[in-house]
């Protein structure tokens, strides 16, 4: 077995990130953009009659910009995960690099997308208050930082228990329990968003938008985990010597 180098890991991570970003932007185009259009109709109706400020970019530019942003963000996150993968590969509890990549991608989705998405659900245009955007950004980023810390703590507990003569499944179950309790504690203690949803935003639009946003993030992390894992998998299965 040839040993992996950091460069080889990062090249594969970057390519997987590119695939993930393309997949995410296709999902965005298919399911998120229609909801953004619905929200913009409401925003338009709100400002009807008042003087309109010229948008910096047209709608089609923003759609393309959103896709480019998804791809760029996916590649950047992939590089981060790639370095983390190289650093912790020998400690991840999976039998193959495919399993290790899938595990890291699952943790990435949980800590960077699902948890903040549950506490501070995605909102279409016309919901967020521009006055509170900095406060909301701080809430969102500190929650993610704390979720990453909890994940790290769960692995720390998992590794510390290695000295005990227990089956690996016991340690895995305890590690998952530590993470689950920790994540729940974060969701309960982090402050609620200062914004309230304007009355003219239908509940169905919020729900559809939030589901669509999660679908995009799930597509990003699923495609990243699968393609990163596949790219790390040797092309040829070692041929077993016939007995």
């Amino acid at each position: 077995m040839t040993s992996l180098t950091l460069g080889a890991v990062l090249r594969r991570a970057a390519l997987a990130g590119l695939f993930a970003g393309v997949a995410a932007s296709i999902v965005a185009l298919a399911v998120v953009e229609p909801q953004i259009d619905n929200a913009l109709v409401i925003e338009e109706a709100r400002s009807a009659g008042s003087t309109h400020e010229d948008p910096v970019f047209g709608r089609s530019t923003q759609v393309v910009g959103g896709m480019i942003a998804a791809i760029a963000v996916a590649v950047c996150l992939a590089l981060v995960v790639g370095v983390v993968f190289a650093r912790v590969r020998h400690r991840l509890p999976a039998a193959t690099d495919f399993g290790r990549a899938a595990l890291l991608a699952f943790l990435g989705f949980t800590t960077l997308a699902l948890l903040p998405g549950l506490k501070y659900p995605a909102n279409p245009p016309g919901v967020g208050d521009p006055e509170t955007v900095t406060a909301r950004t701080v809430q969102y980023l500190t929650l993610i930082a704390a979720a990453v810390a909890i994940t790290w703590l769960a692995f720390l507990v998992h590794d510390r228990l290695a000295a005990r003569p227990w089956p690996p499944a016991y340690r895995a179950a305890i590690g998952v329990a530590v993470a689950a309790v920790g994540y729940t504690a974060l969701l309960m203690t982090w402050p609620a968003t200062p914004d309230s949803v304007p009355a003219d935003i239908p509940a169905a639009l919020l729900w559809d938008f939030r589901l669509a946003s999660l679908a995009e993030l799930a597509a990003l992390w699923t495609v990243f985990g699968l393609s990163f894992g596949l790219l790390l998998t040797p092309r040829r299965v070692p041929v077993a010597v016939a007995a």
Partner: protein
Amino acid sequence: MAAPTAEASTATRIHVPVAAWLIVAFALLAVFVLLQLNSTAFAEQIHEFTHDGRHALGVPCH
């Protein structure tokens, strides 16, 4: 030549130089500029360009 055995469950350690964390820092900074930066004139251009992406990726926005 000895056939390689099935991949062991304990993988070999990959050397990660300290400089590699610069890549992490740079990548996270890029994500921050793309998705989070809000308060400068330059940020307004970025904000408007990546606006749909920010909403779609669930980042706080207005």
